């Protein structure tokens, strides 16, 4: 098989993080090649290097046998490399033809372009009217505009960044038919996604990235969703052991909790139903981007839902904001430490005020009690062994692990009825991670309920009594951690449930 694009030893480092390290793989003409990895695995940086948006620090690329070092996307397009971004850049007030004309490197008037647009869109089964305004088009149709814009330049390699995240199942089918046709004509496609079933249905080969490195190359059709998930996450899904767990009374109930995502690229929550009991640690597994952030927002009160969708001790509080939920005993710790769970430039004392004011009564009708706040901050620092010069240090001056201990400790020490944490040990060293897990278990042992949303399956296996899987905004019914087979977890993480096979065109 000949080679269209050959990448050798690509490396790109940003201050504090190595986005890509020694990445090598090749793409053949007509091949549909999947680039697979979790959020932050380095997929975006890699394709930006191929498309000329980012210059690699090291390594080389060869396109059609000639050295390839694009310094800007125009160079890449001139050599036949096109890209469809996840976020479109279209002017809503202009027509399809005008938008495409603006995006081409050569200057062609929209009226000349229109018949060509119609022709290309017909040939590839992407119905599109050149005279319509972008503002009137659906998200799927806007994506077609971007694809047609690429196809008009006769690409040899088409890069697609998570194209199906914004599409309906019907639109996905149309897109896949187009991609297969292109592939049959010899156009190579680099397909970025973390939807495993899609990749199994569409792609010839897959390169899997983790932590910026290539960890595996495989033929997706020969793999299972589970084995792909394992390669992405980097741990074998061990058969979980049973644990002794005697749940108490129901505390938190979710009834058909649905929430449309605030961002067009987020995942909407669909009819999540759940009952959480005293003493229970519920683990929620799933690949990032399947509704984790939305679920946390719906539980913390940052996003409001119908009152009866969330009840705590029998009180409906879906309509309440964060502070009223805190008063009722429902606390949360978001995934993003800096900027969400804590204000980077504020001191630890001020960050204590951020979420502890209500429950710790750190104010009297609005007048803040800073002495009491400092005392509570010191208590958190001491109990959770937060390494810092003192409560006056800015949150951003702490290391990730220490700040995480502070953020989790701040909630745990407020004696919540229910605590929801997202990625509690993300980027935290092993010792700190162990102490955070221990503190969460301890909280449950004292009669609270804990929801742990995590992508670390080992962590969930170790600490949760029951396990649910969040995929495509749906949550599977919780099952005792020991009772789920590896196959079930893997399949569901890939978006498939036993009752309802994922909608993927064959």
């Amino acid at each position, binding site marked *: 098989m000949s080679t269209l694009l050959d990448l050798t030893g690509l490396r790109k480092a940003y201050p504090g993080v190595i986005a890509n390290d020694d990445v090598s793989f090749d793409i053949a003409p007509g091949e549909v090649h999947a680039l697979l990895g979790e959020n932050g695995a380095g997929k975006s940086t890699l394709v930006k290097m191929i498309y000329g948006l980012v210059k690699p620090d090291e390594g080389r690329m060869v396109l059609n046998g000639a050295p390839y070092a694009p310094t800007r996307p125009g160079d890449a397009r001139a050599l036949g490399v096109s890209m469809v971004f996840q976020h479109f850049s279209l002017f809503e007030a202009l027509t399809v033809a005008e938008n495409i004309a603006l995006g081409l490197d050569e200057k062609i008037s929209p009226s000349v372009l229109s018949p060509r647009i119609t022709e290309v869109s017909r040939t590839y089964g992407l119905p599109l009217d050149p005279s319509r305004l972008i503002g009137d088009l659906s998200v799927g149709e806007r994506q077609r505009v971007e694809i047609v814009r690429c196809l008009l330049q006769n690409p040899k390699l088409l890069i697609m960044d998570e194209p199906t995240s914004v599409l309906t199942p019907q639109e996905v089918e149309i897109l896949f038919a187009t991609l297969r046709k292109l592939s049959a004509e010899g156009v190579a496609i680099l397909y970025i996604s973390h939807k495993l079933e899609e990749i199994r249905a569409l792609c010839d080969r897959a390169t899997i990235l983790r932590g910026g490195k290539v960890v595996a190359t495989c033929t997706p059709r020969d793999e299972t969703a589970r084995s792909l998930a394992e390669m992405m996450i980097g741990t074998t899904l061990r058969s979980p052991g049973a644990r002794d767990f005697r749940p108490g009374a129901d505390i938190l109930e979710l009834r058909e909790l649905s929430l449309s995502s605030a961002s067009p690229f987020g995942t909407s929550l669909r009819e999540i139903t759940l009952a959480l009991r005293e003493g229970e640690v519920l683990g929620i597994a799933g690949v990032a981007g399947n509704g984790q952030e939305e679920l946390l927002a719906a539980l913390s009160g940052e996003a409001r839902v119908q009152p009866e969708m969330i009840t705590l001790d029998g009180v409906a509080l879906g309509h309440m904001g964060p502070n009223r939920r805190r008063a009722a005993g429902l606390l949360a710790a978001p995934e993003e430490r800096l900027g*969400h*769970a804590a*204000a980077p*430039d*504020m001191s630890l004392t*001020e960050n204590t*005020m951020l979420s502890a004011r209500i429950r710790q009564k750190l104010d009297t009708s609005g007048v*803040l009690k800073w002495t009491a706040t400092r005392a509570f901050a010191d208590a958190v620092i001491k109990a959770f062994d937060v390494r810092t010069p003192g409560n006056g240090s*800015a949150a951003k001056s702490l290391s990730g692990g220490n700040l995480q201990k502070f953020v989790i400790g701040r909630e745990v020490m407020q004696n919540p009825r229910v605590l929801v944490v997202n990625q509690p040990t993300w980027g935290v060293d092993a010792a700190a991670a162990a102490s955070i897990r221990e503190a969460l278990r301890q909280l449950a042992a004292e009669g609270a309920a804990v929801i742990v949303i995590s992508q670390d399956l080992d962590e969930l296996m170790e600490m949760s009594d029951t396990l649910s899987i969040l995929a495509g905004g749906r949550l599977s019914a919780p099952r005792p951690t020991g009772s789920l087979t590896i196959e079930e977890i893997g399949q569901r993480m890939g978006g498939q449930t036993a009752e309802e096979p994922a909608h993927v065109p064959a």
Partner: protein
Amino acid sequence: MFRLEARPQQSRAMMLATPVLAVIATMIGGAILFVLLGKDPVEAIRIIFIDPFFDPFSRSELLVKGAPLVLIAIGLSFGFRAGIWNIGAEGQFIMGAIAGSAVGLAFYGTAGLWLLPLMALAGMLGGAAYAMVPAILKVRFNANEILVSLMLVYVADQFLRAIVSGPLRNPQGFNFPESRLFHDSAVLPILFDGTRVHVGVLAALVAVIVAWFVMERHVIGYNVKLLGAAPRAAGFAGVKQKRLTVLCLAISGGLAGLAGMIEAAGPFGQLVPTLPQGYGFTAIIVAFLGRLNPFGILLAGLVMALTYIGGETAQFRLQLPAAAISTFQGMLLFFLLGFDLFVKYRVRWARKGVA
């Protein structure tokens, strides 16, 4: 070669030092400007920065000019802390002056201690109501408050000209576009005989103390700072962002309106088209020079008042153009923002090629 390195924590020393550095740099920059204009730089700087302290009248004028600047800047500091950029304090100042004056004129000839508080209230409401235009456009339609509030300054200015030529014109004023002189009950009492220092100076001092309390000791001030520092964290903390945006604009509009009423009922004693003298814009410099801290703003307000008074003296003593004084004031903000880099970064020397 040198390079900039992010400090792990903002430098408190630099926070305090940069306003002083900026004033010094402005003196140097101003001196160069004056040399280019063919004036004696040492004398010019002396007239602007030093002489006002040795003249009793100039000393009292510092308070007269400083009071409105401090009042407006205190109000602006709430919005600026929260990341809400009200650039239209000048317009809110004018609307406050009109509202306060209208009340004073409506009760023309009626004596009573209640009239001035009523005028002050009207001034605050007038300024706050005018600030509601950018506030509502921002929270409803996500319109940029910088543009909206700035444009409304010119609307307010035209409105003032229209109203002193129309409804509020002095009936015995030979058709000059100005109102009657306010009667005694509608004029601010003088604190020190022989000066123009009026009770509005006390209002500015009260505003400083109340603002300090709210910023440092009250949940509203905390939420304002949190919203500016980390909007997402503010959402997590339960801050109602839209409500707070409206509140910040209401505070800044209200205090600017009060300042407008104080100018009309104080030094001017009537409503005239020349009432707005750019205090609403200069107050932006005062707010930043004072580090958005109430007591810092008090000091900064006095420094800016100094450049007004000294600048005026320099204009007639050295025939400096008025624009030179505006440039001089602008330099202050420019240098301040420049030096602010060193609050978050420090300079590190590195050998060539290493950086």
